């Protein structure tokens, strides 16, 4: 479903239809945590660029007065008192939210198997994962419930489910879109991202939600162009680099064939295709570097989830016990594992050797990629090395892996 497919329908009807369809597919896909009746929003809809376009929003976005769980038990009763900036901007553009979509707990997973409502299923094959952590948003877009769904991406949580569900997943540059009101995972790695079924829609969404926000001081001051007006299909002379290290380790022939078809198509349209290789050791360091930084930041970020002032409180004989009881019951095993490893990296004895070392390697990785990309327009690689895994085979989806 693209915006163009529904733009001539009655605005109210298409939103009610989307709201109904989200419920109709729930049994099969399990993509939604909270359904939002669009009636009130429709009455106040602003005449913006997304006027009465139905959208889904990942459940880690604070939505005033509407349950926001971040897929996690400890927030299963949390009702925010404010809207995230992205939610505010969607409203200003006239968009209508019809669902808070399913996600891995606190966005810390890659399969959407760890959500409080259980697994999210791939509409292309119900035996396969949708990918995560923005699985619900990917699925609602792929299943043509909505043309736009907001997600978030820290370590490919938009890109991977997009790849697994044949949707367009956009993770813009860090700082392009405000993270204010997005329940965090790792503040230096989190990005607002989203799904569409059409590149034109993707450009339109970006110009509606991007921009400087003083409530998120990591946002960029750079102006937001009208991206939708910049689209053209002329790529003659554009320099596209193929990520050789990634392509070389893929052995799935379908993926390679599909990728090569894209490359051939780009060549025919006049793009200059070259291969680029990055330092192999630095590439192999990406996963542990990410893992250390992400989980260290996350364990600190979520130290406020304690059931005392908000969230699912389990009573205890003193405040410490309330926190322990609430956090023990409220966090799944994957979360606990990541918090523990993250916190381990922050111990005084380990900080220099693990956490700060990771931050230094981060700079080296950045520098290497930047140096090789600065004369190119685009770096191209398959987003995943194989199709969406079968759910039964993927029970260990979120275990730390040594496989490249």
């Amino acid at each position, binding site marked *: 479903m693209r915006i163009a497919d529904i733009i001539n329908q009655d605005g109210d009807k298409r939103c009610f239809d989307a709201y109904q369809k989200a419920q109709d597919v729930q049994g099969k896909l399990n993509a939604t945590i909270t359904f939002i009746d669009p009636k009130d929003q429709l009455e106040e809809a602003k005449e913006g660029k997304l006027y009465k376009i139905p959208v889904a929003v990942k459940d880690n976005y604070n939505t005033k007065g509407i349950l926001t769980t971040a897929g996690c038990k400890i927030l299963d009763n949390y009702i925010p008192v404010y809207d995230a900036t992205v939610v505010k901007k969607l409203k200003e553009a006239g968009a209508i939210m019809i669902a808070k979509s399913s996600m891995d707990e606190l966005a810390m997973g890659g399969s959407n198997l760890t959500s409080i409502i259980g697994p999210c299923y791939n509409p292309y094959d119900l035996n396969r994962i949708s990918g995560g952590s923005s699985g619900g948003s990917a699925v609602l877009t792929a299943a043509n419930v909505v043309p736009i769904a907001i997600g978030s991406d820290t370590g490919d949580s938009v890109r991977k489910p997009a790849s697994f569900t044949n949707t367009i997943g956009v993770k813009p540059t860090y700082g392009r879109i405000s993270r204010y009101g997005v329940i965090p995972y790792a503040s230096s790695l989190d990005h607002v991202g989203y799904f569409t079924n059409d590149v034109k829609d993707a450009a339109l969404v970006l110009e509606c939600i991007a921009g400087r926000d003083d409530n998120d001081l990591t946002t960029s*001051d750079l102006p937001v162009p009208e991206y939708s007006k910049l689209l053209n299909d002329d790529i003659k002379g554009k320099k596209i680099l193929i990520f050789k290290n990634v392509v070389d380790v893929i052995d799935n022939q379908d993926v390679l064939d599909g990728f090569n078809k894209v490359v051939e198509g780009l060549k025919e349209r006049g793009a200059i295709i070259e291969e680029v290789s990055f330092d192999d*050791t630095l590439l192999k360091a990406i996963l542990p570097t990410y893992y250390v930084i992400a989980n260290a930041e996350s364990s600190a970020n979520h130290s406020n989830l304690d059931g005392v002032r*908000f969230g699912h409180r389990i009573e205890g004989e003193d405040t410490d016990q309330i926190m322990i009881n609430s*956090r023990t019951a409220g966090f799944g095993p994957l979360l606990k594992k990541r918090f523990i490893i993250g916190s381990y990296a922050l111990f005084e004895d380990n900080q220099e050797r*693990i956490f700060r*070392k990771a931050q*230094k390697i981060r700079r080296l990785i950045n520098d290497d990629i930047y140096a090789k990309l600065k004369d190119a327009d685009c770096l191209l690689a398959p987003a995943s090395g194989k199709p969406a895994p079968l759910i039964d085979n993927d029970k260990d989806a979120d275990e730390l892996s040594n496989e490249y």
Partner: protein
Amino acid sequence: MESKEYFKKLALNLMFEISDEEAENIIKEFATFNEQLNIFDEIDTEGVEEMVYPFDVETTYLREDVPDHYLTKQEALSNVSKEVEGHFVLPRVLK
């Protein structure tokens, strides 16, 4: 290799408890994690500054000390499970 007790204690420092099974799983993952950390030793970071944010561009400014952005008392209390006369309720600290 760190023991189950080590990780259970670490968990408690983070204000949650883990089961024996969860501790076993962590030990396994920790082994993989440590293996991966070996690659850190192969990379020379002498003289390299930590990269804390994805960019080194300055985007943080101080603003005037004008009240702008706050929760009302009612909003702040709206998610607590026990509230009495505008206060969060917790068990007695002094017994």
